[in-house]
């Protein structure tokens, strides 16, 4: 258990560091995938099977591909190494430490994370499914509707407007004449 945690945490953090420090954007994206996969493994270690597999399916299978495609299609893959906002490394490290300290102190003093009471819940995929289909059915449906609307919107934006206009303009007989050749 301990050894597995150390290995997974090292890989995940290593990936995260690589995302920030590598110069080439595609390398950064690939390192991000390592972090995603490491997080998935961490969920698995915490016996959250369903979340782990969905993490892999969604982040490694879809989000990573999306990022990579966006990089390629916007031609940023050949972008020159750029300078960050802050030129001084000391200031950067200082700000990072300050932010990290704030988050950690907030977490440690928070009453929501009472470490003494934590017991690992045994949750099966069946239970998650039943909850989704009974108690959380409305949010699920709303999200489904939202995603469908977003997909349709994306298709409408991506559609070639000129072509659509042409098709609606062109009369039926013309179409029939075209088909004879094909």
């Amino acid at each position, binding site marked *: 258990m301990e050894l597995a945690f150390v290995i997974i945490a090292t890989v995940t953090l290593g990936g995260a560091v690589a995302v920030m420090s590598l110069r080439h954007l*595609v*390398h950064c994206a*690939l390192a991000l*995938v390592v972090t995603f*996969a490491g997080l*998935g493994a961490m969920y698995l270690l915490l016996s959250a*099977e*369903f979340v*782990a*597999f*969905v993490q*892999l*399916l969604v982040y*490694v*299978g*879809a989000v*990573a*591909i999306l990022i*990579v*495609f966006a990089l*390629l299609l916007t031609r940023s*893959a050949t972008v020159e190494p750029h300078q960050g906002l802050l030129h001084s490394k000391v200031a950067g490290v200082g700000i990072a430490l300050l932010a990290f300290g704030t988050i950690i102190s907030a977490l440690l003093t928070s009453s929501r994370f009472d470490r003494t009471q934590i017991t690992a819940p045994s949750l*099966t*995929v*069946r239970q998650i499914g039943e909850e989704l289909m009974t108690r959380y059915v409305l949010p699920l449906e709303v999200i489904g509707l939202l995603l469908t609307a977003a997909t349709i919107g994306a298709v409408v934006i991506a559609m070639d407007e000129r072509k659509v206009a042409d098709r609606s303009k062109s009369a039926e007989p013309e*179409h*029939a004449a*075209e*088909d*004879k050749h*094909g």
Partner: protein
Amino acid sequence: MDIGQLINSILNDPDQVFVLTKAFVVGKFPEGAQPLVSILLSILPILSVFPGLFALTTILERKGLGRIQNRMGPNRVGPFGILQPVADGIKALIKEDVVPRAADKVVHFLAPVVIVIPVIMSYAVLPVGRNMVAIDLDAGLLFFFAVGASTELAVFMAGWSSRNKYSLLGAMRAIGQMISYEIPLILSAITVVMAVGSLSTTSMVDAQAGYYGWLPNWYVFTPWGFAGFLLFLTAATAESNRSPFDIPEGESEIIAGYFVEYSGFKFALFFLGEYLGLFAVSGLAITLFLGGWHAPLPFLEWIPSWCWFFVKLMCFIVLFIWLRGTLPRLRQDQLMNFAWKFMLPLTLINIVVAGIWRFLEPGMLRWAVCAAILAAAYVLLARGLTAARGVAPREYRYAEN
């Protein structure tokens, strides 16, 4: 337990020969090492049997394609050329490994590794026989698709790192195709999940035990199961870049697509990954629709369960070789139209039909209603799509009679 008892119990139940042998070997180790040995003994057969099957398939495929194309196929190494895979393997190992000078060395090296490892991991949830599954996960089907999701990334890594326009084009084609066909693949598998009420692959096989008279209780013999099986098979063919969906490789247009800049054993690894992916997805089709390791007829049950799994797998392999030898390659737009306009609506309708099947009384009426809905959807979709594209019977101007 000594060796005599082991042999006795194997003779009593030849079906469990591997399970009993594993338990016997694990028992010989000290208490602390037993979990590790048990895991290793589950992994080793997967690592040896399926790559072995890959070697067998390469020779079968070359022989079969040769037969279809009216030529001999490989016949020089060993009797009837059956040692050809050995020669191919040695050739791949001793070949020079050429890496393009402009290539991204690290990513170029990692891509073939990343393509093979997840595929091998997906075998962990395939039940190849009674009590023979490496890990019986509660969400086994989800695991299968989750590890399979990284294949697209490996393809991208290979195509991008080669710094070759054919590679990049091939990778783009492959990723577009895989994403498009993953949706019908998963949606057609969902019908079985609905019928079984579980994501575990072993419970899917258990749910298909038994017979109606002489007909096995497999899901492929229900209307939604039959439609789902055909949709799954089509999507699986596209997922594994097999002909007629092999445009990512398209030898005549982009040479070999994303692995054109690979040579030697890395090239062999790409082939291995592709074929192992094909076997895995065929194995999943067997588990979902063809009753897993169950025998097709009641009087054949004396044959061990793992034999049935591999017999079914070999049938799939032969089918894929046959398809490759006889079907022409699709065009990119045809491929996308087929996935999004035909397969996706049909899989969605199939899910509804599976729901109707679940809530109707068993009997002829249920059969008729579900089959009628599916047939109507199929005909209307096909007619509507061909009419929308203005496809009509071809008119021959000069070749009339």
